[in-house]
């Protein structure tokens, strides 16, 4: 059968969701941010809640998320997305409110907002993309940078004795009473992508049932910050990030 005969509208099995805008993604080639954006929008499309979803973009690489997601979005000061989400959710309890944050935003500058929003059990969803580095500003060390990992502010590798060990904020907030669902996922291969999509759907459905806060961490790559090719960075992530940040529900 010729390729031209296969490419017909009735044979379509997968297409880019129309909830992603036509704007070109500003991310580096191979960056996991684009995949996470698309998965969230696919779930929003499948649940039919485009009109009722409000996203909050962070500061960081994904600061322009409002340009790429065709839903109502706002943008918060650095690290303050959970606080803004709290306000929005309390004003519109019927809307689906999510924040989309990186590790520098959520685990460093926004630690207080994250922990207190989790402790209060606000009925929001936090999508947390952890690539172990401050990607946007040039690859500086983040709280989540692994021991021995080189970054522009730890050129000899992170030294736990002077810089402190990396910390797992996902496990930390999982202890809090207000948090209902915490999971860690990845988006570097088809299998993990399918699991991540199920987790996103579960988190948004829990929000409908007023179960409390849900947080999904995506362990992702930063090939530019790590100075690797996209596929090398995915392999490096599997070998080094996954032992420290294990996959699955917490």
């Amino acid at each position, binding site marked *: *059968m010729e*390729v031209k*005969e*296969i*490419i*017909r509208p009735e*044979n*379509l*099995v*997968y*297409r*880019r*969701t129309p909830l*992603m805008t036509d704007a*070109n*993604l500003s*991310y*580096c*080639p*191979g*960056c*996991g*941010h*684009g*995949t996470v954006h*698309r998965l969230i929008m696919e779930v929003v499309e499948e649940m039919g809640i485009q009109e009722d979803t409000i996203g909050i973009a962070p500061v960081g690489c994904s600061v322009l998320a409002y340009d790429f997601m065709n839903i109502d979005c706002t943008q918060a000061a650095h690290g303050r997305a959970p606080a803004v989400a709290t306000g929005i959710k309390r004003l519109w309890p019927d809307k689906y409110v999510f924040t989309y944050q990186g590790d520098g935003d959520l685990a460093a500058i926004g630690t207080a907002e994250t922990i207190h929003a989790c402790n209060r059990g606000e009925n929001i969803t936090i999508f947390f993309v952890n690539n172990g580095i401050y990607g946007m500003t040039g690859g500086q060390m983040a709280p989540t940078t692994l021991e021995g990992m080189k970054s522009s502010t730890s050129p000899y590798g992170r030294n736990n004795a002077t810089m402190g060990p990396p910390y797992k904020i996902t496990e930390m907030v999982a202890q809090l009473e207000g948090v209902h669902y915490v999971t860690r996922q990845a*988006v*570097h*291969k*088809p299998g993990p*992508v*399918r699991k991540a999509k199920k987790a996103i759907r579960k988190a948004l459905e829990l929000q409908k049932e007023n179960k409390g806060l849900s947080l999904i961490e995506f362990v992702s790559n930063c090939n530019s910050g790590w100075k690797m*090719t*996209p*596929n090398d960075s*995915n392999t490096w992530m599997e070998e080094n990030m996954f032992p420290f940040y294990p996959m699955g529900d917490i």
Partner: protein
Amino acid sequence: MAKAKGAIVVDVERCKGCQVCMVNCPTDTIGMATEVNGKGYHYAYMKNPENCTGCTNCAIVCPDGVITVYRVKQN
């Protein structure tokens, strides 16, 4: 047994040539073109179109969502 035949369409101008689709293709269908697109990236294309089964693995890992997948079942 019914055999699935597939085909992909790559949005050439959006593709950033990251090769994640190529590595995750189980049937070695996808290759990177020797030509470049408007941004200067070597874009993905169907190197072995006869191998494609339309499994959608390439499309769901594509960070930029440039791949559209079609599939038919043959008897």
